[in-house]
């Protein structure tokens, strides 16, 4: 009798788990399928292109920067350059997860990027900081558009996007504070 009860408890537990798992799968799948995936991939690729532009823009800035607090500015730009690269990698992984095709060569960045590339032709520290402040602002705007488009229908991607916005906001704050110190 006790054996029979245990068996029914076991079967019940299995059924409960299957029901919960199935519902979770159904809800997740339905939520994801309600997003226009090709539009989402397009937006993510735009962001990948912008991150690479930004990676090179900061790389150059860290090298060519001149003026007061040059060493500090160079270190800051170099750090941000690597963070932009890490962002691009996180986004690229998501593009692949959605079966999208990444921008296969750098010339495509020019066709798809939202914020674009600002040539650091003036190497004065003030100008470089200002230039990168503009780029960061533009990218924050774009990421917010992607978050709105996604409308919380993919929790994992939403987390990635919000973490990148956090990075960008922090870059922006640090650059603005740096500019204040230069005055």
């Amino acid at each position, binding site marked *: 009798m006790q054996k029979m009860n245990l068996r029914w408890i076991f079967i019940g537990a299995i059924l409960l788990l299957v029901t919960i798992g199935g519902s979770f799968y159904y809800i997740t799948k339905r939520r994801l399928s309600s997003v226009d995936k090709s539009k989402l991939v397009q937006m993510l690729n735009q962001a990948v292109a912008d991150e*690479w*532009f930004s990676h*090179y823009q900061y*790389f*150059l800035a860290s*090298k*060519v920067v001149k003026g007061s607090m040059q060493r500090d500015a160079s270190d800051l730009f170099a750090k941000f350059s690597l963070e932009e690269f890490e962002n691009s*990698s996180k986004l*690229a*992984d998501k593009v*692949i997860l959605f079966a999208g095709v*990444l921008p*296969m*060569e*750098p*010339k495509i*960045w*020019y066709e798809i990027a939202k914020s674009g*590339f600002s*040539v*650091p*032709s003036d190497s004065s520290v003030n100008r470089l900081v200002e230039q990168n402040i503009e780029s960061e602002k533009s990218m924050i705007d774009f990421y917010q558009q992607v978050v709105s488009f996604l409308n919380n229908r993919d929790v994992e991607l939403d987390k990635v996007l919000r973490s990148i916005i956090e990075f960008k906001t922090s870059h922006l704050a640090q650059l603005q504070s740096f500019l204040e110190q230069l005055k």
Partner: protein
Amino acid sequence: MAKKGKEIVSATLDVKKLIDFLNQALSDEWLAYYQYWIGAKVVEGPMRNDAIAELTQHAGDELRHAEMIATRILQLGGTPVLEPKKWYTLTNCGYAVPSDFSIKKILKQNIEGEQCAIDVYNKLVEFTHNKDFVTYQLVQTILADEVEHEEDLQNVLDDLIILEGSLKCKK
């Protein structure tokens, strides 16, 4: 700009020409960096993880080379190439779009890229030999890295061919 350092180099070789060569190499490094990065993201097939490990490590090495070259360009009073679209006009080795994601194709594409880079740095080593010790040392270091990269990729490709051969035998 290092005035004395530039003065010493100017006495023995055409600094403008050297800066142009270095900017061509800088463009090559950034294109190779992206080619490796994207290759690591899209590569498909057996031994994929081995390939990803190599491609990712090589991508990081190309970025490190780019850092070294850009620093040297500035020391010589030059300006590193200021925008990505110019990489295409300056590059020696070009960019091979990874349109076929099979591991073999990706490896072969990058082996060709490394072979081209080896030629480029070999010429730079000859150009700077006994004339510019700093650049000479730098390009020699990069040359050694590129030779190692070619070897690493070739080893993965050879292992892959052996694996495929043994699978065919089993059938």
